[in-house]
């Protein structure tokens, strides 16, 4: 990855719908070059997916989400990878990370109700082998997601002219 790739990735991360023509102007390269580079970044997996940052609450969706902490006994030869792989297969699991500190795996789980999430944790996750302990934290409000602040701050008016 070079500087030009880095600029393209930042621009796409900010708005993946930016036309290639505009990317070319912004990043000071030809449209063909932009096209080729994006193709390569997709092929190598540097770009995993194009998506939108959705404020589901604003959209009127009643889903709830929870952060779930798991204490896990690692397996000889595999560490946490195999158990993580099993957990990641559940579509309810939106993100999954291995953490330092008081617990091992952190999940972000979304579901239609608090009840559903509780059932998912107690029936699907907790009984799995090697899970020693679970702690479920319901998300009450999202202030910022993937770098995007949800609450609108009132801007301060600037003078129309200054030198």
């Amino acid at each position, binding site marked *: 990855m070079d500087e030009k790739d880095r600029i393209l990735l930042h621009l796409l991360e900010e708005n993946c719908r930016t036309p290639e023509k505009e990317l070319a*102007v912004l990043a000071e390269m030809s449209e063909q070059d932009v096209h080729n580079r994006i193709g390569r970044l997709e092929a190598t997996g540097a770009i995993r997916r194009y998506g939108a940052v959705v404020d589901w609450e604003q959209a009127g969706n009643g889903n709830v989400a929870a952060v779930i902490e798991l204490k896990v006994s690692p397996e000889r030869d595999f560490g946490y990878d195999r158990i993580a792989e099993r957990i990641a297969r559940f579509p309810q699991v939106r993100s999954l990370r291995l953490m330092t500190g008081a617990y091992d795996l952190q999940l972000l789980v979304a579901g239609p109700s608090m009840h559903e999430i509780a059932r998912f944790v107690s029936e699907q996750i907790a009984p799995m082998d090697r899970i020693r302990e679970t702690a479920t934290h319901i998300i009450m409000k999202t202030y910022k997601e993937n770098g995007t602040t949800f609450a609108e701050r009132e801007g301060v008016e600037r003078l129309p*002219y*200054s*030198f």
Partner: protein
Amino acid sequence: MRDFVSARARAIPPSGIRKFFDIAQTMEDVISLGVGEPDFVTPWCVCEASIYSIEQGSTAYTSNKGTPQLRGAISRYLDTRFRTRYDAEDEIIVTCGVSEAADIAIRAVTDPGDEVLVAEPCYVSYTPCVSLAGGVPVPVRCRADDEFRLTADALAESITRKTKALIANFPNNPTGGVMQEADWRAIADLLVDHDLLLISDEVYGELTYDGDHFSPARLPELRERTITLNGFSKAFAMTGWRIGYLCAPPEITAAALKIHQYVALCAPVMGQIAAYEALRIGEAEKDAMVREYRLRRNLFVDGLNKLGLACHLPKGAFYAFPSVESTGMTDTEFAESLLREQHVAVVPGSVLGPSGAGHVRCAYAVSRDDLKEAISRIGAFLDSVK
């Protein structure tokens, strides 16, 4: 009753954009490219440190020349960033923005009748400050054909026996022009030959997009005859904090400090603490802002040229300075009609010195969406006047 206003104050021309202000005030949906300040809010880490210091009761005067911490940080910053060395103890004064730094620099070196060369087009304050100090401002023209650099030829033409100093601002407001080392070497020879002082306003130094900013005080022959001015407003989005600084050899610094202590006492302490934080931990956010300005520049200048408004690619600052001559209008007519008809505010170049005539200053320190909208409105405007 007598007219109490002094002849000097009366002689200062009123701002050339007063009427633009008045028109813009009546409109709801103006896209203003007329603002010479970043649209970013000061990095939060900087604000947070200053808020904390206020809570701790840090609200008093500081040393006249600024807190030792900030002067030390400025000294180290200039050394690492621009490779100029200034002693924190007797070669740096923290001022109320670069505006004050320019004023006290000019007053510290200007005697009545001294001619002070001003590289134009430029920021509006240098010329009146020279006049208020009793000096005679003399414009030196920087031309579009030279990418708005100051050339030795133009400078040589303007030097007389009375010339004392040259004021230059690169990267330049309003043109975005920059001066590289070779450009400064040519100027340095003239300054030395004629024993002139250089006042170099480098407030846009961090906003240099192709190669690094070259600070003229890096040249040994200029170091002893240069007053370097810089500040936090543009690079760190800190316009409202009013923190700039002046760096010069000790004798000049001492003279400027006398003026500073009587007119300002010291720069605001909250701003000084914020500025210290900006140098300590603000670099990443500054770099992110500079990257964003570069993207905006590319987008906006490309848009202007596609509309047929000839504009060189500015290498610094956050201004595009397109020529409007192809429209057959003067810069003032263009700016006024554009504001009235399409609600886009730009500054007529002639306001920024006679050599700015025929151009308009467009600050691209607004969001990319606003820049796209501005381009489309300017396009509609050009179609309507064809």
